């Protein structure tokens, strides 16, 4: 896609050339959007906040997958497994070891990243279907391990309850500031991110960081090297890109993102077990990526939003569908979710394989060129 800019938008400095948000009104719009999102709990009903929260967590997982699959071209069906790893690590660090959630979150990401490295190892020797299968094996082996190792710590198939993230402030002048309440046991002021409308601030904060990181990976040397691996790995190797190192880096980054998303999910649900996220979720993340647009930074955001909204639509449509078809009874949600998701993904693959992000580019270009071209 050629860079189409409206006339008059020139680069006046190197910094301006590098800028992502180029104009004042874009800044204003972005800040307004962020403000609208952060103040969501004040004007939106609780279910909506919870929905946005779920979308945010999905976006983070898909952003990682985008780096691995969209930029590097390595297909992975293991993203959900790495989320499980991140979720368990964070749950154990906060629950059993008593860490602060905000410290445990990055550690969970790194831990998941290391596990991701292990399952990225076969990527040197195999590609295509064989690599898909190698990542798929992560999807079976990791949940199995959580069910069978250290049962006293991981509680087997039932999984573990995850504490609510909190931050505490010292008592200043006999008052608790920042919306915290006094906790007698700890003797400090504590804020608990218990409900989705409290938790969403964490999700959005992490989402901003993850988006900025993803954006800068894609336009740095690392991103360009990853793209060269995707487009032609043999040629990339001849140009001096260390294939193995870059593939592993991509696996690592993707798993870090998954780990962070998994930790968020675990603390949001306040529970994690081996089936909290599974194979179907891995498939859904791939689907979100394709629906949104591979190899584009907007893709994960659009794709995850659309697919999670479709899921929600299935929940909404379920009661009338059940009324229409009595044999369906309670299975309506279970029927509609995969049905709508599969149908949407198939339609996108056939009619818009480059995803919503590409469509958005076309719309923007058409808007700029109007009335001269379509």
């Amino acid at each position, binding site marked *: 896609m050629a860079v189409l800019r409206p006339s008059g938008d020139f680069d006046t400095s190197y910094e301006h050339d590098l800028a992502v948000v180029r104009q004042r009104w874009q800044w204003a719009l972005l800040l307004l959007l962020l403000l609208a999102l952060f103040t969501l709990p004040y004007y939106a009903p609780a279910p909506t906040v919870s929905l946005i929260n779920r979308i945010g967590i999905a976006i983070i997982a898909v952003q990682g997958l985008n780096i691995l699959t969209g930029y590097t071209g390595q297909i992975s069906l293991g993203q959900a497994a790495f989320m499980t790893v991140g979720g368990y690590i964070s749950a154990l660090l906060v629950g059993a070891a008593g860490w602060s959630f905000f410290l445990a979150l990055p550690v969970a990401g790194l831990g998941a990243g290391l596990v991701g490295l292990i399952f990225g190892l076969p990527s040197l020797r195999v590609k295509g279907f064989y690599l898909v299968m190698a990542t798929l094996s992560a999807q079976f082996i990791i949940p199995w391990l959580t069910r069978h190792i250290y049962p006293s710590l991981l509680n087997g198939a039932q999984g573990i309850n995850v504490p609510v993230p909190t931050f505490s402030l010292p008592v200043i002048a006999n008052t608790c500031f920042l919306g915290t309440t006094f906790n007698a046991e700890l003797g400090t002021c504590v804020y608990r991110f218990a409900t989705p409308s409290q938790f969403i601030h964490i999700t959005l904060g992490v989402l901003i960081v993850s988006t900025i990181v993803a954006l800068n990976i894609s336009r740095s040397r690392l991103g360009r090297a990853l793209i060269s691996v995707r487009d032609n790995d043999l040629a990339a190797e001849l140009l001096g890109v260390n294939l193995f190192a870059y593939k592993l880096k991509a696996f690592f980054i993707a798993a870090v993102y998954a780990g962070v998303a998994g930790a968020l999910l675990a603390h949001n649900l306040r529970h994690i077990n081996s089936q909290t996220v599974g194979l179907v979720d891995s498939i859904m993340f791939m689907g979100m990526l394709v629906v949104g647009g591979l190899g584009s930074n907007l893709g994960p955001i659009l794709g995850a939003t659309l697919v999670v909204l479709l899921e929600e639509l299935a929940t909404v449509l379920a009661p009338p569908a059940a009324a229409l078809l009595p044999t*369906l009874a309670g299975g309506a949600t279970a029927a509609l979710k995969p049905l709508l998701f599969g149908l949407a993904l198939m339609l996108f693959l056939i009619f818009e394989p480059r995803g919503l992000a590409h469509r958005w580019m076309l719309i923007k270009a058409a808007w700029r060129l109007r009335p001269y071209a379509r």
Partner: protein
Amino acid sequence: MNWQLLPQFAITGLLNGGPIALMALGIVLVFKSSEVFNFAHGQMLLIGAMAAWWFASPEGMGLPLWAAIIAALAVSVLLGLAIERLTLRPMTGQPLLSIILMTLALGQFLQGLTIFVFGTTQRNFPVIFSVTNPYRITLPLTYNDNPIVVVLRQNLVWSFVIAMICVIVLVLFFQYTRTGLAMRATAENHETAQSVGIRINHVFGISWAIAGVIAAISGILIATASGLDLSLSIVVLAAFPAVLLGGLESIPGAVLGGLIVGLAQGLVGLPNNSFFMGPAAAQAIRNSAEIVPYILLLIVLVIRPDGLFGQKRIERV
């Protein structure tokens, strides 16, 4: 280790490998002709078995079992043809990722469709083989002076036999019929096949139809042993590694891969409380049947990246 159970578990495992091999064969067949790895095979299995149940049950058509099975096979043929024509024909020439995702999406879609049509209730599938009179084979071996008796459920034995018959029929079909020859030629090279007058779209259609039939047969074999339920679609997860163990393009490889997977799944039942790593580890290993195929797969991928019988891929820039 429960050594006295070794023959029992080995034989049971091998027999269980029969249906796995049949499922792997269905996947390899489609891959050979059209280079599509069919992740929706499990759902085809499910629909085949559901159709057979519907035709046979008094709640549905109430046909006699043999007629119901034939009708279910016909449905599966139509399903295979429809899948090929509607979803995979438009994907010709698309990158690998798109094709993988297409079959994954198709799987989800079919899963939803099955629930939509049949609901989520578990059903009793008509019993084809007696469930109460197992075969007992006394082996010419002893353990602590007791003869070792292997008990085999009838459906296990007969499922294996039927699966193997299907394999042999398919191999003969490829070897000795004109269509089989055309399919082999297409598998070799699409353009060359087209240039000698083979209509490769027909060949794709036929291979999907055969895959449908194979899926339905495996579905029915499994359902008759253990009841019919949505979880039938995930039984195929044991067959994916079997396909790659043997090598994606190899029919004997798929069969052997299936049997190896079955055998491995049987043998993990052996460790008991005297296991050298302790009773807890032994129990974990006994419950590892679902991941053993994938561990085998990882090992094979590291040692022989193209599977045991796969073709070596050579890439040029």
